[in-house]
């Protein structure tokens, strides 16, 4: 059972701890994953990238979280209306809105997770004495080890993704085009209440085409779902039941990216949580509480590193 209030409170505590650790007076977050981690705000899902903009502001002195949103729908109940600032097309209006947030004008160290020329002009105007600091690494560190509530969200996302991938592979058996697999996969996930895919899905690791699939083709469909911001990744190959179990022996606290590569030369491992996190390569060390998306040419799974090993956050391949 996911306790959303507890989940948000825990994330806010971790955000403020990261700010204290790096001596950041203010965080100005543009990445949706970071904004969501700090605030719990759910905003409209759009595909692709958005340029950096001050979408969420956290002030360490007051502990206050401020969010760019014209309405309170999708906003957590602890976020007061005077902590919302509305979307605008006018840079001068946005400058006034951000400049009016208590704690911004006197800030000396502001952490950011991206930048544009326009955003730099804005921040220079509202906090002329501040030094801008890279907050990408501190935010990723705060997000790395997942709470039980976060894992529960990922488990839900994985279950939805499994249904989507299964629907795509079922359709493949009936002789449709690769592109139509995307439709079946998205359809199945939406029927389970999740209209926010992590991706539109790949066929054999590439962009689906208009090729009509022969009913005896061996194809791999890989996709993912996003539930309450948290992502789960699943990839399956029809009639191939190989999954994460080939790597189970090497996934444990203290193991490195090099260990994973040695055990499976075609496996890539990334952190996963509020979307994708950085890859685990070389000397990167696994820690208890991390969640990983592991992808190979024939399967993909989402796993959690436990005290002494790893567990699959989904069902084993049939």
């Amino acid at each position: 059972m996911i306790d959303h209030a507890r989940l948000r409170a825990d994330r806010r505590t971790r955000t403020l701890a990261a700010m204290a650790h790096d001596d950041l007076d203010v965080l100005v977050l543009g990445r949706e994953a970071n904004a969501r981690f700090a605030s719990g705000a759910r905003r409209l899902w759009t595909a692709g990238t958005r340029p950096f903009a001050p979408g969420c502001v956290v002030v360490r002195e007051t502990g206050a979280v401020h969010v760019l949103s014209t309405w309170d729908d999708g906003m957590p109940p602890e976020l007061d209306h005077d902590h919302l600032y509305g979307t605008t097309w006018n840079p001068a209006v946005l400058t006034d809105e951000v400049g009016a947030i208590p704690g911004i004008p006197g800030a000396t160290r502001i952490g950011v997770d991206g930048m544009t020329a326009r955003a730099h002009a804005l921040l220079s105007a509202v906090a002329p004495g501040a030094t801008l600091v890279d907050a990408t690494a501190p935010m990723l560190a705060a997000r790395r080890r997942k709470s039980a509530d976060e894992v529960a969200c990922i488990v839900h996302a994985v279950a939805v993704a499994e249904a989507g991938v299964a629907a795509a592979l079922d359709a493949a058996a009936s002789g449709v085009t690769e592109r139509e697999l995307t439709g079946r996969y998205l359809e199945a996930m939406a029927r389970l209440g999740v209209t926010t895919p992590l991706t539109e899905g790949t066929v054999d690791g590439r962009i689906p085409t208009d090729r009509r699939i022969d009913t005896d083709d061996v194809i791999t469909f890989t996709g993912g779902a996003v539930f309450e911001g948290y992502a789960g990744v699943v990839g399956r190959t029809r009639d191939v039941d190989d999954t994460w179990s080939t790597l189970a022996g090497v996934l444990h606290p203290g193991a490195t990216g090099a260990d994973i590569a040695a055990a499976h030369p075609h496996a890539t491992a990334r952190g996963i949580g509020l979307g994708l996190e950085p890859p685990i390569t070389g000397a990167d060390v696994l820690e208890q509480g991390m969640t990983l998306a592991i992808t190979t040419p024939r399967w993909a799974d989402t796993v959690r590193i436990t005290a002494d090993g790893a567990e699959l956050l989904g069902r084993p391949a049939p």
Partner: protein
Amino acid sequence: MTPGSPSPLAGEGLDPARMRRERLDTLQRGMAGAGIDALVLLGLSNVQYAVGTHHVAGDQSHAFSPRIAAVVPASGAPHLCTPWPDGAPPELPVEHVHPALDLDTDGGAADLFRLADDVSGRDATVAFDEHTTATWFRTNGTARDAMPILGAAKLQKTGDELECIRRAQAINEAAMDDVRPLARPGTAQTELTAAFQRRVNELAAGDGARVTNAIDPIWQVVAPMIEEGPWTTTGHVAYPLSTTERVLADGDVIWVDTGITYLGYASDFGRTWVVGDPPRPTPRQVDQFHRWLDVVDRVRDVIRPGATAADLTRAARHGERTTPWLPHFYLAHGVGTDSAEMPLVGTDLGEAFDEGFVLAPGMVLVLEPVIWDDGHAGYRSEEIVAVTDDGWVPLSDHTYAPFG
């Protein structure tokens, strides 16, 4: 309301290679005029414009890492870093297609800067569209801003670009013909999304062009009174709100808004539906629809090269007691490789901005006025037009059912 002559902005077929060549020429002319030797592009819609590459669409977090990026030199073909080499345009030399970079790391940023140096030389003047922290702190904030060049290049579309928007819209609209009958009492919003996603990909299959979804489809039930809906900073209607598993009820007024892309160009579908089996709009709702249509007709009547954005807002407001669009949005916006881009008409950029913005051939306008009767909800739909040499042509063509 007689549309302008369609030629030369429509009906010439679609040549994607020509489209890409002309866009690159436009960008490189803009770079020469601004004294910029190379563009480094990280924004997906900007890479799409400069290179014309395909990708697997996804959540913002997925699109970031490892991400698509491009380097555009002063002359010659662009360079593309991508996890999807199968999506590179066929005419792009293979030595211009590079592996994707993790631009959230110093190593990835260093690789991108090395590529820019290789392409344009170490002393080149480089402009970025946006930055990760790794690229920003590596430039020490000294890089130029690429957005003015991109904005100017994108503003007036070629016939090929308009055809992409028209095809995106045609697929989106055709899918809606199959979704609209499902908006019955007892259907969940998410079931409409399921049907839409499946149908879009069925319709796209066989076309040969890449089609992706651009936004979580919206089927918002609009409360009759503003105060019954979510609180807003503007005091007006909260829209658009994310889709949930809310079950539709007889008589619900829903504002639909969806968007897909065709070769990177966005559609923008907006309609008001009434839930019912069959749907039965009230006389008051039908009246709202006709008032909305009047606003659209008045605005289209003044669309031509030389008209200002303020001419459009004046035409929309003529005879109305209240401003007939949402205060946090606009009367109209452009569409292209971004779902909302210039021209922006009637925004909080203000009247002086609208007075100074002059329409020209090839600009695209998505008209989205709103008629609101507080206590009785309202009517909102969208129509897309392209400015021609002497008027406009429609890029959207869809029924207003159940309003006639």
